[in-house]
């Protein structure tokens, strides 16, 4: 389904140095698969996810979905690809504060042309399944970080994507809720025959994936079974610094 071949991406740091965020990575993602990209902060995880989504272009290598090079898609086709094929969960969630939880979750369907009523009807079961059905009509600004994260997941799944890309989807959840969400994602991957790639620095999250890869200094390497659990990493739930956004 998704294939990255020799993909590299460089950035120029403020001091002028060139930083290799992703360096010659090759990766294939298959249907039903829940892939965890595990690594410490600054290892290039998010950049790799953006490359996989076609949100940024590689400096070298190709990113293909069903054999089509994403870099060669027209703007219109790339937009259509994201609208109909891919679901995203960003680390910063990107919820619209003035909309309720269910309207946020329904936003992608509305963008695709559904009426608001149709879109809300479509996403309501998802919110129930994610355990926030009772908070569906709360404004996003009044939700807790964990609730907002689940709304973001609901939005990513709302359009029936074939690929879901999630950046730290359990980063703000307690361990019990994180396990539930990961289990749900795994179940959805199996039920809907879709591929899910998550970026995480949570060893427990990495351990629960069907496949886990470790990213270190822009290079990808297999993660031995149990290695993630043994790795010394920051705790799963990291409180946001005071006054900053979630």
């Amino acid at each position, binding site marked *: 389904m998704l294939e990255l071949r020799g993909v590299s991406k460089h950035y120029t740091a403020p001091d002028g140095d060139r930083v290799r965020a992703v360096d010659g990575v090759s990766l294939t993602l298959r249907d039903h698969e829940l892939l965890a990209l595990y690594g410490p902060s600054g290892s290039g995880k998010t950049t790799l996810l953006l490359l996989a989504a076609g949100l940024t272009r590689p400096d070298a290598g190709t990113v293909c979905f069903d054999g089509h090079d994403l870099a060669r898609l027209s703007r219109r086709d790339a*937009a259509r690809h994201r609208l*109909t094929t891919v679901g*995203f969960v960003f680390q910063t969630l990107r919820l619209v*504060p003035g909309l309720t939880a269910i309207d946020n979750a329904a936003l992608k369907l509305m963008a695709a*042309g559904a009426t*608001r009523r149709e879109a809300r009807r479509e996403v309501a079961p998802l919110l129930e399944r994610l355990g926030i059905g009772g908070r569906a009509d709360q404004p996003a600004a009044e939700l807790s970080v964990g609730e907002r994260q689940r709304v973001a997941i609901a*939005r990513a799944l709302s359009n029936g994507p074939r690929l879901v890309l999630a950046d730290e989807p359990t980063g703000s959840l307690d361990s019990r809720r994180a396990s539930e969400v990961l289990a749900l994602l795994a179940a959805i991957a199996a039920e809907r025959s879709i591929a899910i790639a998550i970026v995480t620095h949570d060893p427990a999250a990495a351990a629960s994936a069907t496949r886990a890869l470790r990213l270190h200094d822009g290079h990808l390497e297999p993660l031995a079974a149990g290695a993630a659990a043994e790795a010394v990493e920051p705790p799963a739930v990291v409180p946001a610094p005071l006054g900053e956004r979630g």
Partner: protein
Amino acid sequence: MRLRNLLFLYSRRVLTHPLQELLAVLGIAVGVALVFAVQVANTSVAGSVSQLVHGVSGAASLQVAARGPEGLDDGVVGTIARLPGVRIAAPVIEVRATVSGPRGARGVTVLGGDRRLVSLNGPLLKQFALPGLRLPQAIALPQPVAHAIGVPIGGEATIATGAEPVRAPVLGVLGRDQIGSLVASPIVLAPLDYAQRFADLRGRVSSVLVEAAPGAEASVRASLVRLLGDRANVGSSDREAQLVRQATSPNNQSTALFAAISGVVGLLFAFNAMLLTVPERRRFIAALRTEGLGDGTVVRLVLFDGLVLGVVASLVGLVLGDQLSRHVFHATPGYLSFAFPIGGQRIVDWQSVAIAFGGGVLATLVAALRPLSDLASRRPLDSALRTEDREEDATIPSRWALGGGLLLTAAAAAIPLFAPGAMIVGIALLVGGMLLLTPRLLAAALAVADVLARRVRSAVLLVSLGELRSSTTRSLALAVTGALAVFGSVAVEGSHLDLQRGLDRDAHHLNAQADIWIAPAGDDNTLATTPFRPTVAARLSSVPGIAAVRDYRGGFLDVGDRRVWVLAPPRADPTPVFASQVVDGDVATAQRRLRAGGWVAVSQAIASDLHVRVGDPVTLPTAVPTRLRVAAVLTNLGWTSGAIVLNATDYAHAWGSDAVSAIQVLLDPGTAAAAAVPRVRAAIGPGSGLLVQTAAEREARFRTLSRQGLDRLTQISTLLLVAAALALAAAMGGVVWSRRPRLATLKLSGFSDGAVWRALVVESAIVLGIGCSIGAVFGLCGQFMLTRWLQRSTGFPTSYSAAGWLALATFVGVSFVAVMIAALPGWIAARVPLTTSFQQD
């Protein structure tokens, strides 16, 4: 995306940021309101005359008008009526007069006509068919005039036309149901022979209205020119309306420009209000694009937002503008009523609505397009991936902005030197330069403040500066709003003061030529344009303290499409023109030539129309066409259509009349004018209808009337200041309120409520102080350019003086008011609960 979904998303956004949306609506509405109100006021002035002209002329398409107040011999009416193709030739008496009663006096135009005028079927003159007006000695008044002077039907009003005042029975008071909107026109209707008698025009007529047979208009016009072309003006029957359109054009132009500047400033307020929400809107759009929303849909989304905002705000603006035009801009420019029958009608045409509404919507759409710039980015989804702080950093000025700002400012500075005709472009460049330079100037000022803050070791100051640096977009929006507010106020009010100073200087020069002036009473005669027989002059020779009595002549003359003010001081006057009035020519030579006779000084616009320069011969279209030579080219002396100066003897010859329009009295040295006035009044006796004034009294009247003419400019600049203070206060309030979580974080760090509040106030003062000082400096440049534009394009006398005090006062005033207003939401926000620091957007 469906329309209903777009509407839903927009409504959510409005509910999330109501203050910013309200601020944007207010900014646009203020701009639209100013433009609309000025449009309505300007249209109404010319429109009222046009309505009156059509109300009188009816089916007549041609007019033969006398070239002076003495009119034409009424024998010409029969001659015209006998010309082939003429159906009706209707004689008309039209004179300016003052009508008075127990409650007051009003300046009016007396219209005298007979059954021939009625037969033209003009809506106004149908009233001549009223039974009462068939009587030979009666007048009819519109209801507002009758009410103002306090004369009912059956009462008596006094009419003064320059001749001895008469008491006339009022046998008709005309209401709206009889003459429609013409009820607002300042007129008196009278039978022709009666009007001829009290206007001292027996056997004379002011004009003849001519209705030609179908298809015969051209041949009739040619016949009229052959018959009377050398002693009367032959033209279309709406010539008066054309003349007033020309006369109001410079004033309309300057008022419209000032309103447009204010409008643009208002719209920039709106743009800045939107700038406050730009990061949030960019993130929203980027999030939708990430999810797969196409470029076309994004454009529709953004345009929809702008369209809804623009339509709502422009509608609010039209309502505000309507109220402004009724209650603030409703006064007619008093000085124009000296020469035209300007009524109080309020005329709203579709063009005024379309310009204001369309302009508002269009400007809003342009202002709303900022987030679309992301579509052109190489990495279009960047804004979705940035954190807030990095996004703020993205608006830190680039070198391009600095270079562009310097380039635009330099281009603006070069315009007065190399292309003074393009001053408006220069002002636009100046505003553009200021907007582009403000970010860099703000950054530099913050750097300097930073250095100072380290020395004073104030935690409050450090926090304030830190907040300003960390939210560049917001700081910039506030600084730019302050800069625009002060720029607009200083430029508009500064050039207004320059214009006022120029008019005052001319008023002083004109009136200081005599110690006492004697002229027919009435506001309409402030410029001494009403002729009268100088029979009282002989009685003054025996009054003690009088050194000399001189005849002054003056009036109006139609030259081409201009109704020109003619000033004819006595030959003995040593300074018929002044250095400040002369645009081209040597002052001393011009004065000598004008005194000698055979020479004339004309305004720049007239010289341009007639294609003459100093020394060229020119034939004035007077009752007795007279060939003179141009002694100098002048400003317009404050009369928008232009002015002509010649000596009183040449005037008498050219107009074929010995009548004067004022008597100048020069006193012996040591004789006080105020003491001499009662003696002069006693000498001329009661009932003459003449007003005796000292030069100072007359100058004060001039100043009052010239200020009336400039009232709108004053009102515009005042409204601009009020709008600026409100916009700044609202912007500050919005910014302060949206930052409550950060304020709570400060409190968590140990800051007291008072310290947080002080930090907010200091922050406001810094950013507004910087913005307003930038606006003040650029505003002084704007004042210079606007003044030059006014002088060049309207011909008004101006006297430039850098409005340093005005700039300082505006800078201090706007900054102080805005900071004080912002202190209130700051005080409330500083009491934010600590738990707010844990809130997420």
